[in-house]
C-alpha cells in the first residue's frame, strides 16, 4: 500500500526550528529550514545528518520549501545549503525571497559581530543560497520534476506567508506553515480550496485558545494611545522589525488620518525602513482595503509616520515612537524607555509576548523599580500596557482550515505537546480523521488509498453510457472494455481498438452445448416447438426462425438434429460466443427443463 512518511527534524511538539521531512510516492521534500531561538549551540539548527551521514543532500532531497521569512522557518537555510551542501531547488514566494535575506543578514550580524561566533555562515553564503531560490506566485502550480508539483496558497500571518500543497500523482500533502484565519489591518485571512489532501500538516501554536474579537483590542489600543497623546504624553511601542510593526503602523496611520491628529509618529530606522519598502511593493499580498485603495494612495506610504532620529526623544510635546527590539532588552527601545520612564504622563505599550528576564517582562509583571547596568536604579512611573496582537490561527481557526481543506489525515507540528493533545482529540472527534503529532525525529507513516486515474476513450465512454440509465453518482457502473497498461499509464479502450493496437487477431470463443429432448416428432416440428416456446419466454429478445431450420436468439444459434440411435430423442445444439455467456447459459438451462407439453 502506498504510504507517506513524515519526520519532523524540528517543530515536532515544539515551537521553533521548523523543519519537516516528507516522503511521498518516492519523492523527498523538506518543508522549512528554521533555527531555534532558545539555543546558541548546535541544537539551534535541525540535525541534517538524519537525512544522510555522508554525501550531498541534493541526492536525497527533491526540493526544499520555505513557507515564510520568519527565522524559525528559514534561519538555517544558508547553513543547510552552503555549509552542509544542497544544490537542489528551494521554493518560496516572492515577498519571502525579497525579505528573507535581510533578516538572515541581520541574524548573521548579531551572531557573528555581536556575539563573536565563528564557524557561522557568511554574507556571501546568504547570497549564494538565495541564488538557488525559485520564487513562486500564489496558486501557481510549479512542476518540480515530471511527477512532483507544488502550489502555494495565501496564509496571512506575515507578508508573503504561504501554505504549500505538494502533489505527486494522486497523493498530496498540504503544509500550512504559520497561518492566520482572521484578517488584520494589513493582511487577509488564510484561504485554501477543497483540495482534499491525504495529509494536512498544520501548525498548532494556539491549539487550546479561542481568541476574542480583534476589534476590541484594536479599539483599546487606539484609545490608550489617543488619550495619552491628548494629555501631552509620549507613547513608546517596542516592536520587532517585521510583521506586527507594520500592522500597528497601519492602524495608527489610519486612525491619525481619520481623527485628524497632529502629534508626530516616529519609526526607528534601519531594518524596518527596508522592510517597509517591500511592503509597499507587494500590495497584492495585503488585505482587501489596502489592495483596493492603493491606486489612490499606497497605505504603506505613511503620511504621519516619519523616520526617528535619536535627538527626537528629547523633544517636548506628545509623540508616538515605534522602536526595536520588541522585548525592551537592548537597543533603541531600551534607550528611549529609560528617558521616558520617569514621567507618569508617558506610556509604554507592549504589543507581544516577552521572554523572562527581559526588561519588558519585568515591567509587565508589575515591577516598578528596575536595576539597570551600573547599579543604576530606574523608577518606572510611566503607564505600562499590554496588548496582544498575534497572527496565528486559534483553535477555531485551525478547525476551520481543516473543514475547508477536508484532508484524510492531519498532522500537528509547531506547538506544545500538551496543547496538541487536546486539539488532536478534538480533530479526531469532530472530523473522524486520524491525527498525528510526532516528536522530533519520530517518523509517522500514513497509508494512503490513492485512486488510480485511467484514461478512457471518448467513443467507449459514450457507447457505454448510452446503454444504461443516466449515470448515478451513488452507484458504481459496470463497463466493458480492455485495460491497457503501458509506459506507466492506464487506458481503457474498446476491445476492437485494443486488438488493433496490439496487432492481434481476434479470436472467437464459442461455447457449444448439446441438449437432449425427448420428442417423437419430426425435426422441423421440434424446431418449431422450440421456437414457439422461446418466443413465448424471451419476449424482449429477438428470436428468429431461419429458413435453414435453425433458430437464433440474438446471436445464439440453436440447431436440432435427430439422435443417431434413438429417433425419439432430439439433440439440440446450442452455440454462443463468450460475450453472450449469460444469455447462453440461461438458454441451456431453460432448454434442459424441457419443452412444455404442447396443447396442440
Amino acid at each position, binding site marked *: 500500500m502506498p504510504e507517506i512518511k513524515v519526520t519532523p527534524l524540528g517543530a515536532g511538539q515544539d515551537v521553533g526550528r521548523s523543519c519537516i521531512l516528507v516522503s511521498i510516492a518516492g519523492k523527498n521534500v523538506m518543508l522549512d529550514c528554521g533555527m531555534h531561538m532558545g539555543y546558541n549551540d548546535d541544537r539551534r539548527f535541525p540535525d541534517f545528518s538524519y537525512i544522510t551521514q555522508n554525501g550531498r543532500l541534493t541526492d536525497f532531497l527533491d526540493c526544499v520549501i520555505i513557507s515564510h521569512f520568519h527565522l524559525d522557518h528559514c534561519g538555517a537555510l544558508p547553513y543547510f545549503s552552503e555549509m552542509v551542501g544542497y544544490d537542489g531547488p528551494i521554493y518560496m514566494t516572492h515577498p519571502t525571497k525579497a525579505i528573507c535575506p535581510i533578516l538572515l543578514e541581520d541574524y548573521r550580524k548579531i551572531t557573528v559581530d555581536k556575539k563573536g561566533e565563528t564557524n557561522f555562515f557568511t554574507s556571501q553564503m546568504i547570497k549564494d543560497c538565495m541564488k538557488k531560490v525559485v520564487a513562486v506566485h500564489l496558486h501557481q502550480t510549479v512542476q518540480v520534476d515530471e511527477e512532483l508539483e507544488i502550489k502555494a496558497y495565501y496564509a496571512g500571518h506575515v507578508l508573503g506567508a504561504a501554505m504549500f500543497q505538494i502533489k505527486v500523482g494522486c497523493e498530496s500533502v498540504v503544509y500550512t506553515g504559520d497561518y492566520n484565519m*482572521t*484578517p488584520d*489591518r494589513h493582511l*487577509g*485571512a488564510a*484561504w*485554501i*480550496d*477543497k483540495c482534499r489532501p491525504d495529509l494536512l500538516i498544520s501548525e498548532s501554536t494556539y491549539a*487550546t*485558545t*479561542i*481568541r*476574542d*474579537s*480583534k*476589534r*476590541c*483590542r*484594536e*479599539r*483599546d489600543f*487606539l*484609545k*490608550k494611545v*489617543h488619550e495619552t497623546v491628548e494629555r501631552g504624553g509620549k507613547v513608546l511601542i517596542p516592536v520587532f522589525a517585521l510583521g506586527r510593526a507594520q500592522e500597528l503602523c497601519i492602524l495608527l496611520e*489610519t486612525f491619525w*488620518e*481619520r*481623527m*485628524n491628529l497632529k502629534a508626530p509618529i516616529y519609526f526607528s530606522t534601519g531594518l524596518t525602513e527596508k522592510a517597509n519598502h517591500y511592503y509597499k511593493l507587494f500590495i497584492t499580498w495585503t*488585505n*482587501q*482595503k489596502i489592495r483596493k485603495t492603493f491606486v489612490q494612495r499606497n497605505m504603506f506610504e505613511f503620511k504621519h509616520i516619519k523616520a526617528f532620529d535619536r535627538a527626537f526623544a528629547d523633544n517636548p510635546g506628545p509623540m508616538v515612537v515605534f522602536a526595536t527590539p520588541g522585548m525592551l532588552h537592548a537597543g533603541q527601545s531600551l534607550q528611549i524607555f529609560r528617558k521616558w520612564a520617569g514621567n507618569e504622563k508617558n506610556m509604554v505599550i*507592549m504589543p507581544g509576548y516577552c521572554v523572562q528576564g527581559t526588561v519588558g517582562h519585568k515591567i*509587565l*509583571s*508589575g515591577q516598578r523599580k528596575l536595576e539597570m547596568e551600573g547599579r543604576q536604579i530606574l523608577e518606572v512611573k510611566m*503607564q*505600562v*500596557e*499590554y496588548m496582544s496582537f498575534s497572527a496565528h490561527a486559534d*483553535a*477555531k481557526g485551525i*478547525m*476551520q482550515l481543516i*473543514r*475547508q481543506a477536508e484532508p484524510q489525515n492531519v498532522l500537528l507540528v509547531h506547538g506544545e505537546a500538551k*496543547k496538541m493533545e*487536546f486539539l488532536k*482529540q*478534538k480533530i479526531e472527534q*469532530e472530523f473522524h480523521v486520524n491525527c498525528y503529532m510526532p516528536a522530533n525525529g519520530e517518523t509517522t507513516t500514513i497509508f494512503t488509498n490513492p485512486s488510480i486515474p485511467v484514461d478512457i476513450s471518448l467513443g467507449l465512454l459514450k457507447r457505454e*453510457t448510452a446503454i444504461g440509465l*443516466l*449515470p448515478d*453518482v*451513488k452507484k458504481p457502473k459496470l463497463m466493458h472494455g480492455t485495460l491497457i497498461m503501458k509506459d506507466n499509464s492506464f487506458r481503457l479502450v474498446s476491445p476492437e481498438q485494443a486488438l488493433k493496437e496490439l496487432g492481434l487477431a481476434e479470436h472467437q470463443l464459442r461455447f457449444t452445448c448439446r441438449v437432449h429432448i425427448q420428442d417423437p416428432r419430426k425435426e422441423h416440428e421440434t424446431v418449431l416447438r422450440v421456437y414457439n416456446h422461446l418466443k413465448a419466454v424471451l419476449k424482449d429478445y429477438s428470436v428468429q426462425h431461419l429458413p435453414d431450420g435453425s433458430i437464433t436468439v440474438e446471436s445464439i444459434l440453436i440447431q436440432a438434429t435427430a439422435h443417431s440411435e434413438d429417433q425419439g430423442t432430439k439433440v439440440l445444439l446450442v452455440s454462443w460466443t463468450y460475450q453472450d455467456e449469460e444469455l447462453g447459459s440461461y438458454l441451456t438451462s431453460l432448454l434442459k427443463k424441457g419443452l412444455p407439453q404442447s396443447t396442440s
Partner: protein
Amino acid sequence: MAAHLKKRVYEEFTKVVQQQHEDLSAKKLRLTKPSKSAALHVDLCKATSPADALQYLLQFARKPVEVESVEGVVRILLEHYYKENDASVRLKIASLLGLLSKTAGFSPDCIMDDAINTLQNEKSHQVLAQLLDTLLVIGTKLTENPSVRMRLVEVACKHLTDSSHGVRNKCLQLIGCLGPVEKGVAKEVESQSAKDVQKIIGDHFNDQDPRVRTAAIKAMLQLHERGLKLQQTIYCQACKLLADDYEQVRSAAVQLIWVLSQLYPESIVPIPSSNEEIRLVDDAFGKICHMVSDGSWVVRVQAAKLLGSMQQVSSHFLEQTLDKKLMSDLRRKRTAHERAKELYSSGEFSSGRKWGDDAPKEEIDTGAVNLIESGACGAFVHGLEDEMYEVRIAAVEALCMLAQSSPSFAEKCLDFLVDMFNDEIEEVRLQSIHTMRKISNNITLREDQLDTVLAVLEDSSRDIREALHELLCCTNVSTKEGIHLALVELLKNLTKYPTDRESIWKCLKFLGSRHPTLVLPLVPELLSTHPFFDTPEPDMDDPAYIAVLVLIFNAAKSCPTMPALFSDHTFRHYAYLRDSLSHLVPPLRLPGRKLVSSPVSPSITPNEDPSQQFLHQSLERVYNLQHLDPQGVQELLEFTIRDLQRLGELQSELAGMADFTATYLQCQLLLIKALQEKLWNVAAPLYLKQNALASAAAKQILEETYKMEFMYSGVESRQVVIIHHMRLQAKALQLIVTARTTRGAEPLFGMCEKFLQEVDSFQRCFISELPHMQGSFVDKLLDLMPRLVTSKPSEVVKILQTTLRQSTFLHLPLPEQLHRATATIIEPTGESDNPLRFTSGLVVALDVDATLEHVQDPQGTVKVQVLYPDGQAQLIHPKPADFRNPGPGRHRLITQVYLSHTAWTEPCQIEVRLLLAYNSNRSKASAKIPKSTWSDSMEALPQSENGIEGTIPFSKPVKVYIMPKPARR
C-alpha cells in the same frame, strides 16, 4: 405549406392600408413599408454559406419587427431552420424565435407547436438548450393557459435525461417557471403526467454537474416564489448540499434552507448523532450561521444577509451568535466586553490595564468543548471580523434586523456594533452607525459604550460625524455624567469642525428634550452660575455657548423647575435665540412672561385639522363663485390667495398644498384680469397699455405653470392636465395679443398652426381626462376644431378670444400629498465681510452646502447658479456623488463651485442660488405614452419639438463677497 406562406408574405408586401382619422378633414393615404419577413426570406435564400446566413440573421436581429408580421417572420425562420445544416445558424434562429415571441402584443401560442416539433430531431445540445429557452419565453407569455404549461413541462421532463448540462439546466428552469403550482389544478392534469414537479427537481439535487445542481435549487426557489408550498422533506437534501464543492450550489442551498425555515419554522427535526430534537428554524439558523465561515465570500455574504431575516429563531440560539466561548490554555476566558461591563458595574473606571488582567479563570472540561459543530456559536463575531467588507456590511445589516425584533439581543449586540465604529472601511462604519440609530429605541448606552461612540466624533469624514449626530439625537443615556460627556465631546467636535454647527445644535436639542431630568443637575455647571458671585456674561455669538443653551432650553421645556436656575442674561439670551433660532429653541413657560406662540395641541388628528378644513372651504368658495361678475370674482380670488399664502406660512405640513392652490388661483386671476372686456374694446391706438398687461400676464402664467408642474412632488396626472390646460390658455392669450399688435397675416399663420398643433397634442396626451373638462376652454376649442383648421388666422384669433372669455374655470382637485421643493443654502452663509481673494484668471473653489427637500431626482435637476455683478451668469451641474440622501424626501448637496473672473478694483458680491431645471418633455404626461421598442420608430412623437427647457430658482440667493486681484508680474 411553404408556398402558401410565401404567398402570405408577398401579400403583406403590397398591402394597402387606409387609415381612417377621426377628424374627417384630413384623410390620408398611407403605404406600409415593405414587410420585414419578406426581406428576410429573400436574404436567407440568397445566403450561400452558413456564415452568410448568420450575418443576415444578425443584421435582422438589430431591427425591430412590427407585431403583425411576427408570425410570418417566425414561419420563415422555421422553414430555414429545418433546411439548415449548420448548428450555429440554427442556434441563432432559435434565439431569434425567443426574441420574436417577446414582442409586445404578439401571442405566441400559434408557434408553440412548431417550436416543440423542432426539438424532436435536434441533435446539437446547444441548439436544444436554446430552443428550450425559447419555449421558456413562450411559456412565460402564456402563463394563464394551464394546458400549454403542462405540455411544456412534459417536454422539459423528457429532456431532463439529456447528457448535456446546458439542456438539463434549461429544462429545470422551464419546470421551475412553469411547473404547476396550485394543488387543485395539479391533481387533474397530473393524472396523465402523474409526476410531482418537486420530486423531479429534487432528483436533480445530486446531479453530477454543479451547474445542474444549482439550476435545480434555483428552480425549486422559483416554484416557491410562484406560490408552491415546498415539502419539508427536501430540507435534508438541502442540508447535504451545504457541503457541496461548488460555491454557487452552496449559495443557492443556503437560500433554499432559509425558505424552508420560513415555511416550517415550528416543525421538529432530529439532531444527527444524538436523540435530541430541535425546531427546524433553529436548526436552519445554526446551519446558516455555520456558512458564515464558509470558504467562499459569496456564500458568506449570502448567509450573513439571510440571518437577518430569521426572526423566529429562539433567543437562546440568537444570543449564541455573539458568544465565541473564549478560552486560553483550556481555561475559560472572559471577553473584553464582559470585562468592560464588570469594570463598569463594580464602579471602577478606566483602571490601567495590568498584564494578565485578562488571565483566564476556571478550567474547562476538555470533553465539553466543542470547537466546530457548535452551530450558531460566534457566527456574528466571525462575520463582523471577516476580511471582505461586503461580508461585514451584510453582518451589520443582519444584526440590525435581528436587534430590531429582539430587545434583549439589541442590548447584547451593542458592544459589537460599537466595535464596528472602528472598522477600516468608512462604508462599514457608516452602516454600523445607522444600524445603531435604528435600534436605539431598544437600548440605553452604558457610559463606557457612550465613550467609545463619542470618540468617533473626531472622525474627519463629515458623513460619519453627521450620522453620529443623528444617532445621538435618538439615544438614551443613563446618567448625568453621560450627558455631560456627550456635551463635552460635541463641543470639542464643534471647535474642531465649525461647519458642523447646525447638526450639533440639532443633536443637542433632542438630547436635551429626551433627558430633562439628567440635564437639570448639570445646569449650574453648564451656565457657570455661582450662588454668591456674579459671573461674566458669556458671548452671545459663541456657537459653543449657543449649543449649551439649546441643550438647556430644550430640557427646560418639560422641566418647569429649571428656569429658576437661570441668571438674568440667560433670559435675555432666551428671548434672542427664540427669535433667531426658533426651530431649535422651544417656547418656554417662563415666569413673568406670556407664552407667545399658540399652544399646539398634538391630540388633533390631521383629519379634523381645522386648518385643512379651512383650506378646503376657501377652495369650495372660489369654485362655486364662478358665475359672479368679474369684479367680485377678482376680489374673492385676491382674498383667497392671500389667505392661502398665510396659511402656508403658518402650517408647514399644508404649505405645499396651500402654495400650489394659491399659485393656481393666481394664474386664474391673471387670466381674468388680462381678459377684462373693457380693455379689449378700446380703440387700436390705446392697445399699448393693455397689450403690455396682457402679454406680461401670459408670460407670468406660463412661468407659474412650469413651477406648478415641476416644483411640487406628489402631483398626479389629474393636476397635470389642469396645469397644461392653464398653459394652453396662456398660449392662446399670447396669440391674441400678438395678433392684435402685429400687422400682416404672414407671421400669424405660423403661430396659429403651431397653436393648433399644441391643442392637438394636448388632446392626444390627455384623451382620458377630457370627459372631466366639460365646458372648459379646451373642450369648446375641440368642438370648434374643424372650423379652426380651415379658417384664416384673424378668424382663429377671434374665435379664441370669445372661447377664452366664455370658458369656465376648472376645479383643481388636490392630491393626497403635495410638497413643494425647497432648498436652503447652509453654506456659504453670506455673513462674511472678508472677501474671498484670488488672482484673477485663476479659479477659487467655493464650498456649497445645501439641504433640498422634496426634490425628485436631484442628481438630474438641481443646478447651482452663480451671478456675477456684471450680469454674467454661470450654471454649474453638481456631480451625482455630491448628493447625499439622509432621509426620505431629503437630500443634501455638498459640492464645490469654481469661481473665476477678471480683475476687479473693489471686492464685490456675487449671488449663489440653486435652480431646478426642467424640461417639458420629461413631464409626467409624456411619460405615460406607451413606447414600445418594436413599434415603428419613424413615427416619432411630435412632442420633442415643443419641449421647453428652463430653470426655476428655488432657493434664496446667498451673497458671497469676492475679490479677484490682478495678477502680479
